[in-house]
């Protein structure tokens, strides 16, 4: 399934900046960054639970905010993009 993950992490403190980095690292394990705090991920249900668990464990519920949007069906049908778009489809041939 396709999901969109966005977050705000309070970076006023050193611990906050650390959480910000950790949240980004976790998101990268499951998907890719499409904007500064926005990730698109394609995950199996079990992996989705794992991701949610790791993210909620890392964030601070009193200061940070995390939103996960689920896309119904294929992402192409539900996303319009304008301007810079660095999205890479991991289902297309991957040749570097």
């Amino acid at each position, binding site marked *: 399934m396709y999901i969109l993950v966005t977050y705000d992490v309070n970076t006023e403190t050193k611990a906050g900046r650390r959480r910000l980095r950790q949240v980004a*690292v976790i998101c990268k394990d499951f998907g890719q960054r499409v904007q500064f705090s926005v990730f698109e991920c394609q995950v199996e249900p079990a992996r989705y639970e794992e991701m949610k668990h790791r993210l909620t464990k890392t964030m601070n519920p009193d200061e940070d905010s995390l939103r996960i949007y689920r896309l119904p069906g294929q992402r192409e049908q539900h996303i319009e993009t304008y301007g810079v778009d660095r999205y890479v489809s991991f*289902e297309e041939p991957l040749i570097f």
Partner: protein
Amino acid sequence: MKPLLNTLYVQAQGSYLRLDHETLKLEVERKLVGQVPLQHIGGMVVFGNVMVSPFLMHRFGDDGRSLVWMSQAGRFKCRLSGPVTGNVLLRKAQYTAQSEPTAAFHIARNIVAGKVKNSRTVVQRAAREAEDAADRVALEEASTFLAASLRAAGRARSLDEVRGVEGRAGRVYFEVFGRMVRMNRDAFVFNGRNRRPPRDRVNALLSFVYALVRGDCVAACEGVGLDPQFGYLHALRSGRPSLALDLMEELRPVIADRLVLSLINRQQLSGRDFEPRPGGSVNLTEPGRKTVLAAYQSRKQKETTHPVIGQSVPLGLVPHLQARLLARHLRGDSAAYLPFTPK
């Protein structure tokens, strides 16, 4: 069913692959040029001077993801193999089948029948599409011969006979292979199969694609717990993945030859995508290889109806399914090994 995960191909020379948490990162000259979460990658094929970090190799070994090294020209060099696992009873059945003369012979015969039938499908299709009358006649003749070979395979009584049928059918097939090339004929001259090294463009292309299919077939054998070295049609030889080569026979026309022909006939490749090498061999250039890899990967994602299981599956999963059908037969759960013969 097992999902068909993507294969990552890396041919940028001097690049470095490393593992960062659950993400694979690709760097060229210390600059990050790509990153892919591991969950999207089923295997990786790297060409020439590409470095892979030890921890990434460990991870691939642990997870049973396939990792294959090729020379820059695309010749198979080696692959990573994790601990020997899987079903030891299945492997025992695989070895036992060899010592029962009829068992090995029946498997080999069905493989050859599958290969001949699939070769004939390719030839027939080319005959229908041929614009030149002489080509059409030659292709139709070859098709008739292959039909006869199919019957001969059914009548064969020994492994040697089966191998003879396969050899003759293969010769006839490659005699007319050049006639299936419709575009750019002066650039893509084909006078029979040659390899080690390939000496013309078509042979270079065939060898490259066969090496890719072979890697997938080895992975398929290992994926179901079969020993890729222990085959039936191909004689056992040290270092040779005989079973993977067996599995590959029926898939060559469908997966590889059709791809090669369409790359040429749709003019996705031209003479400029190849370069001569010292010693008379011909190689694909880097952009040429990229075109082939992209086409190979999208061909693998194409859905096809599997005649035995009656389901629509991506072509790239067919080697795995065939390995599983073979395992079922070896364990005695099915009476015969049925080759993959799409319409």
